[in-house]
């Protein structure tokens, strides 16, 4: 039985990543008091970021992922992302923007010149 995707972007499932790391930030306005100790005030709690990598994706799969974030292909920089949140301990949906999408070309078909796939593909999604 196929398992549910780990990450959905605007309802579209991403391929199962090879690695998935979660990051939770607390945004703090901080400074030193007159005694030299840090004092701060929470600006925002639990800002989520997830980083995904794929050891290998076909050229079609990586293009599919990239188009989800490309405005000229009907995608968006900021999307509703359903993901597994390490703090919530479950799946949540947040508005997230995408970081740089990066990959290394695997190889081309020696006969046709077609790109056959990508290795070490990566992107990150950060809560707005």
């Amino acid at each position, binding site marked *: 039985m196929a398992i549910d995707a780990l990450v959905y972007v605007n309802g579209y499932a991403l391929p199962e990543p090879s690695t998935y790391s979660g990051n939770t930030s607390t945004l703090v306005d901080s*400074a*030193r*008091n*007159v*005694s030299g100790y840090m*004092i*701060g*005030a*929470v600006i*925002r709690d639990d800002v989520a970021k997830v980083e995904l990598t794929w050891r290998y994706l076909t050229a079609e799969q990586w293009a599919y992922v990239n188009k989800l974030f490309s405005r000229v292909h009907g995608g968006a920089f900021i999307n509703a992302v359903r993901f597994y949140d390490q703090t919530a301990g479950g799946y949540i949906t947040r508005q997230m923007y995408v970081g740089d999408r990066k990959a290394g070309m695997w190889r081309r078909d020696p006969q046709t010149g077609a790109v056959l796939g990508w290795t070490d593909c990566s992107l990150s999604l950060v809560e707005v």
Partner: protein
Amino acid sequence: MIATSDKWRIAQLDSLAPEAFVEITYKVTEPGLQESAVESNNGAMSFSDHNNIVDMTGREHQTYATLEHNLWALGGDHELLPNVDDTGFVSSVISGGDGSFSTSPVITITLDALHAQAIPGITITWSTAYGEYASRFRVRAFNGNTEIASQEFENTSVETDCQIALSGYNKVQIEILEWCLPNRRARMERLFLGATQTYNKNNLLSYTHKQSADLLSAELPKNNITFSLNNADGLWNPDNPSGHIRYLAERQEVRVRYGFKLDGVIEWIDAGTFWISGWDTPSNGLEAKFTARDMLEFMSDIYTGPKKGSLYEIATAAFVQADLPTLDNGDPRWFIADNLKEYMADFSDNNTDYKLAEIVQLCANAACCVMFQDRRGVVRVESIRENSAGYAIRKMISYTHPEFTLTKPLKSVSVNNGMGIAEHSASGEVQKLENSLISDETRANHVAEWVRRTLENRKIISGDYRADPSMDVLDKIAVESKYGTNNAIYVTEIEYKFAGAFHGKYTGRSTDFDVETWYSGELVSGGGVKRA
């Protein structure tokens, strides 16, 4: 200090203060519009209180027993008429089995004149007491007998924000087509001609709140906010035909509150009520800036009231002439301490044109009182509060050590060219005070002594700190210095800046009360200390 919970105060002493919030609620309407409205209808019950549904007051409504379905008295859940203060509008017709009416109740709001200024819609509160609402209704606006706008709404809420742009109208009708329940009368508790918009930290790009008040009422108090909103979508551009700028007008009411998230729940305190005084929305700008001021914005006319009488009567006449908007419960937006009734003034031979705010300020000064606007938006003239809850700006929350400046030594105080004199020392500066509302020698001497006692404290103390926005001007607080000593001050200026968290600047004049007795050093919470 504004009253807060122990949790709030304790949180202020943590190295990491909890998440803070600012919420600005802006009533988009035409000033004076509600006051000019007269309600009529095509059939209401004898106990219907529909004459005051169009006003700014936020009354509590109760359920009461009637013979409507499930509203009988025997259950004991409802009050019996006439023991209910305010029922709002109650229709004479009852909804049928499908919620519709044989004759639709129509509520007509007639205005005193044609209103050209645009409003973005109307806000209807149906029945918060019963949790009921019109599920379908129509709003129509007229210029005389000519219909200029009409829109039908479907609704599932007891409070409905009806977005229908209105301008050039002198009559508004609400026709209730269907009620949410069968066999019930249609009810309406309140109708606000305009819309309410709320901005919070998600919309705010910057926010500053400045307050100042003079211990001697020698200057007018100031209480104003400036804030900027995201205008990347051009919503506030002056040339955007569908933008919000067309609804913006001076003297529209803005309410602000501050909050901290404590154990997952936001605790709110009032930050103040202000009135829009200016805005800056450049066409190519990414932000729209707004300024809102205190009630004194309404008190710049020349005083024309009596020039002889008690200070209380004169100050009251100034407030009445200003025709200030009332509080939600209908109470006036001013408070004058009773001791002003004891002091008489006569300045009938003085032809100076005083502004209304200046008259109140002179009354406060002559009665040895302070003048300020509190967080509810009430201008108060009263003796300085002696009962401030103990509060200390400790080194722990200070970004800078307090700065000390000393005013010039005081020799004496002279009121009205020697009518009253208070000697202080052999050398120094003679402080002169002119107030035409101080009419006799006894009062002049009393005021001179009051000024002397205030000015003999020469230390002015200021600093920056991680702000607890519950602190107010004229609060009596302690400031912990570099050497661990505690300086007692009356706060005369505060500035709160909010950029996700509160930063504050304060200035105050030292007072002569025994701070070490007052400040026992025993912490009860946060920056607060327990009185000895």
